[in-house]
């Protein structure tokens, strides 16, 4: 760990990215909701351009874990580094002290997140959703941000929907706008929390297509999903979580052909 450069601010924004190959380094992360021990010593390393798929039964802590990576949830012990920067905390005499809000906000600029329920801003058009953070957080001129946003919309196949409000888009279209919105911040890492599980079956494909393309272009991604077809095509690694722990880890092929744990086998038999 000591080789990872530490920025005094603890922030990534504005600081050139270290050449490190490791984007996410989580070590022994523990998290409680009250008395419920939700994450029990999770460790995970994600290298640049790697795509990691996280699977596991409902309630196993997948959502909580990826929310900890951009500090939407606090952790009680362990460390999460993204691009070498400790997320959400400063270390004072070996103890974690929550970082200043402005630093946490700056760290989140580098981490894109796509939610199960899209969470587009309903009072803004697709285009306005996408330029919102570049303009008001990164302070990029509107004209420049708009140009980028239009390119992103074209990339997710929604060039014609720039001026449409979210409520007038289908679920699949909304999720693609949400992906474009996250990409507009030029993140170093994209987190996806079951991005297709709120979608009607006929819309799942269009969202997965966008994600596959993103993966092929070299985006570093952690994807919570049960779409094993997606995993097989683009995942470098699949991680199986159970009751707050990682119980099995391997290539997609490993999970299709040779899962070791009983829990993994029974889980896969339900989703495949």
């Amino acid at each position, binding site marked *: 760990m000591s080789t990872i450069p530490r920025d005094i601010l603890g922030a990534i924004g504005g600081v050139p990215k270290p050449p490190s190959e490791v984007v996410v380094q989580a070590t022994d992360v523990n998290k409680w909701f009250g008395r419920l021990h939700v994450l029990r010593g999770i460790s995970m390393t994600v290298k640049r351009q790697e795509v990691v798929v996280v699977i596991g039964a409902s309630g196993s802590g997948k959502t909580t874990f990826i929310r900890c990576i951009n500090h939407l949830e606090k952790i009680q012990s362990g460390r999460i580094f993204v691009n070498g920067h400790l997320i959400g905390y400063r270390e004072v005499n070996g103890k974690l002290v929550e970082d200043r809000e402005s630093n946490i906000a700056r760290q*989140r600029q580098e981490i894109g997140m796509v939610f199960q329920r899209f969470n587009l801003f*309903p009072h803004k058009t697709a285009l306005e959703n996408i330029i*919102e953070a570049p303009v008001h957080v990164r302070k990029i001129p509107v004209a420049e941000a708009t140009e980028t946003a239009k390119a992103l919309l074209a990339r997710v196949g929604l060039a014609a929907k720039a001026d449409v409000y979210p409520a*007038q888009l289908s679920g699949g279209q909304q999720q693609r706008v949400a992906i474009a*919105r996250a990409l507009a911040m030029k993140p170093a890492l994209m987190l996806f929390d079951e991005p297709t599980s709120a979608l009607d079956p006929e819309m799942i494909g269009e969202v997965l297509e966008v994600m596959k393309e993103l993966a092929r272009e070299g985006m570093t991604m952690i994807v919570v999903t049960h779409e094993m077809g997606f995993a097989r095509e683009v995942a470098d690694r699949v991680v199986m979580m159970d009751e707050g722990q990682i119980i099995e880890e391997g290539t997609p092929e490993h999970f299709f052909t040779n899962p070791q744990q009983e829990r993994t086998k029974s889980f896969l038999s339900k989703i495949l």
Partner: protein
Amino acid sequence: MLVGALAVVLLAGCASGEGSYQYHWPYFFNSIFHPDDQILYGLWLTLSISIVSQLIGVVLGVFGALGKMAKFLPFRLLANFYIWFFRGTPLLVQITFFFFGLSVAKIYTWPPIDLFGLHIEGEIQAGIFALGVNEGAYMSEIVRAGIISIDPGQLEAAKSLGMTYAQAMWRIILPQAARVIVPPLGNEFNNMLKTTSLLVIISVPELYTIFSRKQGQYFAPFEFFLAAAVWYLLLTTLWSIVQAWIERRLGKGAAGASANEPGLASRLLGYRWRTSGTGVR
């Protein structure tokens, strides 16, 4: 009310005899159609005091709401105390306490101030202060209800894009909460227009004070108070038109909602002219 009053007048007219009240209708009609400078000034004061007090109330309401929801305990305590105090005591007591209480105790004597070329007397300042602070307590609850009606996912999405809590509130949450806040806010302002009449107690020459003085001067309470009622009705009716327009503008963006929102006519007359089509999909 107007119709009722007129009915009473007609009945009274039939039964008019020795010792019955002598109506002076010119007092009434002149107050409406040829208002003198006093009435116009009273009207201006009622309107301007209402607007400024309501604006103060909205600002305090946002802070009160955020304070009530703050993680930091002292903020929560402060906000709760503020709301508890101002909702738990009569506005009339607040007005008299702030004006007479503070000035007699020499805590603050409300000296006149000149602002934007306007000379503002102490009683007007005290009145605006009392009305604004009181309104803020009620607006706190309204704003809070508006904020908590917004899906928490909105705040999380904003945060995940690198916004601070303040940025997310200002740019994402409050604009959406406004849709929920505006209808009750409109009712609050309707109330505010009428509640300013309480300022008669500290001699602010607003609409009610003016008419109250006039009726005493001419001993014509029927004509002048009826005229006052007409002026207030005019103000509140004009406001309901403005309110309907604002609500329609806020409706944009939420597909489906705007098409189904009641139009101006239905708001004013209480029913719908026609059943509007379903929302755009």
